[in-house]
């Protein structure tokens, strides 16, 4: 069965500092991995995804994520946080080889960036 763990309910960071939002996953076979963001009073938006190839994936708004197969992790990172990055972030996984499209999301991590 697929599962996603986001071990931190909340991450606090000062503006201008680097940020990391952690995600680990469990899936049979190779994974598709995704990050989505939910800004206050707005719907969920796609941020970036890993399919195959380069382990470092770059996405919208300066975010990037690193796929680590041995650690089954897909942590979200940004070199310099902005106050406007404050939002709820979700990691998601889908198995490549099941023939289905079931996408499982983590519990979410709330990011607070302080000015």
């Amino acid at each position, binding site marked *: 069965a697929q599962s996603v763990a986001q071990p931190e309910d909340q991450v606090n960071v000062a503006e201008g500092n680097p940020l990391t939002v952690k995600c680990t996953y469990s899936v049979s076979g190779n994974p598709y991995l995704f990050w989505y963001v939910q800004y206050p009073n707005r719907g969920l938006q*796609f941020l970036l995804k890993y399919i195959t190839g380069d382990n470092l994936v770059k996405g919208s708004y300066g975010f990037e994520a690193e796929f680590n197969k041995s650690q089954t992790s897909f942590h979200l990172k940004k070199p310099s946080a902005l106050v406007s990055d404050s939002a709820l972030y979700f990691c998601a996984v889908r198995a490549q080889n099941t023939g289905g499209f079931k996408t499982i999301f983590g519990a979410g991590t709330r990011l607070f960036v302080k000015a």
Partner: protein
Amino acid sequence: GAGVSQSPSNKVTEKGKDVELRCDPISGHTALYWYRQSLGQGLEFLIYFQGNSAPDKSGLPSDRFSAERTGGSVSTLTIQRTQQEDSAVYLCASSEGLLGANVLTFGAGSRLTVL
């Protein structure tokens, strides 16, 4: 349409009543998903439809929940005999089919409050 449309945006109902939530996916998207987001919780997978295949209902929490998708487009999620624990935001998403790496596009959600 240009995006995923959900209605109603807000629904307040009394315990024991039935409710129907509607989702109109992006035109041409063959995959459609329902998720539930409770306060302080992550995204809970409910059900997904892919083309003419049998839906994956593995996430439906009880037999009070059902969903259908007519003509491969609009979907309705029905909750019978609502309970207070059903209060949540119900999110619909759609994606292009057949490629597992396809991104989900979410609607704004239907907020259900059961009194």
